[in-house]
């Protein structure tokens, strides 16, 4: 550190006063103070991400249970037993199917709605600020608050059913096995959409105006230029939106816990993270819960890779 504070110039052109400086430069870099500045963040990343990731994998291969802090207990290696138990568990299978249903509804809806709304917003002349804020307000609000309103809106005698009258589903939305998951998918689409609209708005600024002019000269209407200029122009943003929406879906917890009262009815809206919570913390089996987590991470990575390949091929 002392060597840098005395160094008059930041450039590498200045040779060090002695061998010691050149030695530190080689090992620590030109400005070793950076290590000190970045250290808290690096330690944080190791403690909160890298180590838990390794620990999750380790736990999933052992017969692990909770013990009092500091207690020495034996936790034998059990190979793939936890994975076998998890993959054969109908509750777990159900939760993965539920989240698949969620993604099939949520991801395409998110991509289409956010791109169309961002395009319209980009062209809008009036009240852009009001519109932009209206669309992202659900994103910045706590899920718990919004779930409270949706509970009220979608309850048996709620406003939605009052408006539908005889068309109201029976059993009602949140206690209907076929409808609980779609309502959650719709809720999350609504809540997150504003964020993706902002991502698309930024991406739209990078689409060259000349391309629109060229399309217009060629006689392309609005729809044609949307399809041939906008959609390909924002493709990298689309990849990002699909991957982020998939990750958000894999993380689903608050909505099944509160909106459908614990993954109900009868597990029809239980998500993998909710089952992880039940098995790991409520029932005290962190080993099987960790195995669910590892399987889920692998699924998310695979989906992301496939999406990238599909969306970026030309």
């Amino acid at each position, binding site marked *: 550190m002392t060597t840098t504070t005395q160094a008059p110039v930041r450039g590498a052109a200045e040779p060090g006063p002695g061998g010691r400086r050149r030695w530190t430069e080689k090992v620590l*870099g030109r400005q070793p103070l950076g290590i000190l500045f970045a250290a808290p963040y690096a330690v944080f*990343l190791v403690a909160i991400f890298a180590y838990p990731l390794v620990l999750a994998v380790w736990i999933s291969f052992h017969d692990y249970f909770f013990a009092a802090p500091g207690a020495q207990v034996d936790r034998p290696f059990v190979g793939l037993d936890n994975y076998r138990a998890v993959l054969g568990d109908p509750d777990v299978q159900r939760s993965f199917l539920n989240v698949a249903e969620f993604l099939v509804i949520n991801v395409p809806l998110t991509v289409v709605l956010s791109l169309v709304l961002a395009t319209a917003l980009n062209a809008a002349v009036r009240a852009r600020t009001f519109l932009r804020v209206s669309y992202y307000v659900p994103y*910045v609000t706590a899920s*718990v608050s919004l779930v409270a309103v949706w509970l009220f809106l979608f309850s048996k005698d709620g406003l939605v059913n009052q408006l539908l009258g005889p068309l109201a589903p029976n059993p009602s939305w949140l206690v209907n096995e076929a409808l609980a998951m779609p309502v959650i998918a719709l809720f999350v689409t609504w809540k997150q959409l504003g964020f993706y609209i902002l991502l698309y708005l930024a991406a739209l600024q990078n689409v060259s105006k000349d391309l629109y002019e060229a399309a217009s000269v060629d006689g392309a209407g609005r729809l044609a230029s949307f399809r041939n200029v906008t959609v390909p122009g924002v493709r990298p943003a689309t990849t990002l939106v699909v991957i982020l929406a998939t990750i958000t879906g894999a993380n689903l917890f608050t909505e099944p816990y509160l909106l459908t009262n614990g993954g109900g009815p009868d597990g029809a809206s239980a998500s993998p993270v909710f089952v992880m919570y039940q098995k790991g913390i409520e029932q005290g089996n962190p080993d099987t819960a960790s195995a669910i987590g590892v399987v889920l991470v692998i699924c998310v990575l695979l989906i992301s890779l496939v999406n990238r390949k599909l969306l970026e091929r030309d």
Partner: protein
Amino acid sequence: MVSTGSTTRDPRDAVPTRSDARDDDSTPSTARGGRRLLGTLVLFAGALVFLFPFYYMVVGSLRAKADTSVAGALPFGDFTFDNFIAIDSRVDLLGSLLNSAIFTGGVLLGTVVFGVLAGYALARLHFRGRGTLFAVMLLVQIVPFQLLIIPIYVMIVRTYGLADSYLGMIAPFLINSAAVFVFRQFFLQLPDDLFDAAALDGASELRILWSVALPLVRPALLTVVLITFIGPWNEFLWPFLVTKDTSMQPLAVTLANYISNIAGRAANPYGAILAGAVVLAAPAVALFVVFQKRFTGSELSSGVKG
């Protein structure tokens, strides 16, 4: 290709400008205006759909009796603050708000202090491991936090015994990676000359950070505070797991427990729930409406995950 209705005297008027060329297509201007109007109408209708639950939350929180009929959605009738009093008597509203504020404040403090340092180092200093740290930072953005919940729970609650403590609540959120990214992008786009001049004057790295970089950081700071605030303030799962003692729970957890356990006993359960929902939502919504300029796509495109 006539762009305006007036007769063209100046020959330059006959040449369409850039914006004219973009607007101009074969359709007559009335149809074009009609379509633009349609687009605007769709946007406004969508905005109303997006805002309606917020409006309904406020109206519902002010009604003495829950009214789920269509008329109940209209802003008429007797309004009362009884529901706010009811939720405050059922749960410790002020205590929960205070816990939320401490949780959020701790995360903001950690993110601002350590995030500025890390962002500055990543943008401006050459040190061993910079590339690795940057790569890990990007990687972290796609590792879903919820999936690490079991090992983090094991570490914080079981190994370190930090259940029901602010430290245990704050630790997993201490430094927001998206905020580090925003700081890095900000320091990266400052002109090199600024730093070179200070270095030529013999200023140390520490001094350059303190007197050159930090005084300029304010716009990035506001963006960072906004995107960091909504994390802990709205977070439910982690504080829910780490706090069993109700006097330690932040408002999101208190309200969720109220919804799932004890709401049935209040005179107007929905009214009390919605009153709590309004209290939880208000600070974040207010912050983002007031500082909406700092929350745009270009501010965020760097920050990937909010």
